[in-house]
């Protein structure tokens, strides 16, 4: 795999498309076990991201990712702002000064992102949060020598679906305790869109 500025921008555009067309769905998931703002927050945040990227010029992939991060931090009012903002900021830092990102570099960036999210949210795997998608993705990447785009997507999808059976111990859903079981975690669903979008970009580039 190779990721250049063009692909990263396309990754964010595809993510935005998925989030816009699933805005109501994300909101309904969040209304079930959270504060109901996830669809609106993500739709607003990623629309701003796409606007920002289309009006800027970039030399390095890390600069694109930094703008993604800063936009999400300032425009998303819910927990997904600092969490996704941290994820993309860590990726940006890990890829600083690189023009074409190769697979080992990308792996490292995702590992850094997950560590950042865990630290920011003080959460671990199994707590019914976005980490339940990001961590299985890291495990998957660590096992692969070459990135299979389709498998990336299906790994994220399986991980997202598995959050249905978990009891939330972090985030607003944690207040509901057992009542959170049986619902998908909204942050895991939006994380799935991010990896599904990446998978599409990689397939196009292959």
């Amino acid at each position, binding site marked *: 795999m190779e990721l250049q500025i063009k692909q990263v921008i396309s990754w964010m555009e595809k993510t935005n498309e998925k989030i816009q067309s699933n805005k109501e769905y994300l909101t309904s998931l969040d209304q079930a076990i959270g504060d109901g703002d996830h669809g609106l927050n993500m739709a607003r945040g990623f629309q701003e991201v796409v606007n920002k990227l289309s009006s800027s010029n970039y030399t390095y992939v890390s600069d694109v990712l930094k703008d993604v991060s800063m936009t999400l931090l300032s425009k998303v009012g819910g927990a997904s702002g600092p969490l996704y*903002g941290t994820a993309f900021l860590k990726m940006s830092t890990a890829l600083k000064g690189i023009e074409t990102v190769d697979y080992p570099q990308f792996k490292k960036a995702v590992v850094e992102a997950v560590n950042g999210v865990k630290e920011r949210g003080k959460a671990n795997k199994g707590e019914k949060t976005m980490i339940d998608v990001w961590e299985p993705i890291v495990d998957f990447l660590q096992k692969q020598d070459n990135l299979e785009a389709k498998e990336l997507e299906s790994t994220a999808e399986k991980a997202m679906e598995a959050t249905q059976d978990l009891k939330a111990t972090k985030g*607003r859903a944690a207040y509901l305790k057992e009542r959170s079981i049986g619902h998908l975690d909204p942050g895991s669903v939006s994380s799935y869109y991010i990896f599904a979008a990446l998978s599409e970009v990689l397939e196009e580039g292959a």
Partner: protein
Amino acid sequence: MSNVGIVLISHSPKVVEGIKDIIRQMVPDVPVELAGGTDDGSIGTNVEKIQNAIENAYNEKGVLLFFDLGSAMMNAELAVEMTDYEKVKVVKAPLLEGAYVAAVESGMGKTLEEVEKAARNVFDQT
């Protein structure tokens, strides 16, 4: 003499305005800055608002940050990581009661550490 600054962070602008009103009844002159709601004033928190509030509340005594739910703490911690000031701390205490006691202690000229300790132990006071 300067006083430890207080920053109130809530998902709702009304919540922090109300808390400031309560504080001002007893403590008229301690810096109290607000970071309530998102950048467009809806329910949520915003790191830039928190950064501005720190800037306005800051003096050599330092600033303490009080927060309510979820993203409020994460954004408070982010703002602390992003600031160049050293004496800025997030306090784990109830937003209203903690900030109230902190304002009173700050008004008495206490240090950052003393004010923080009083706020954290707010329910232990008789």
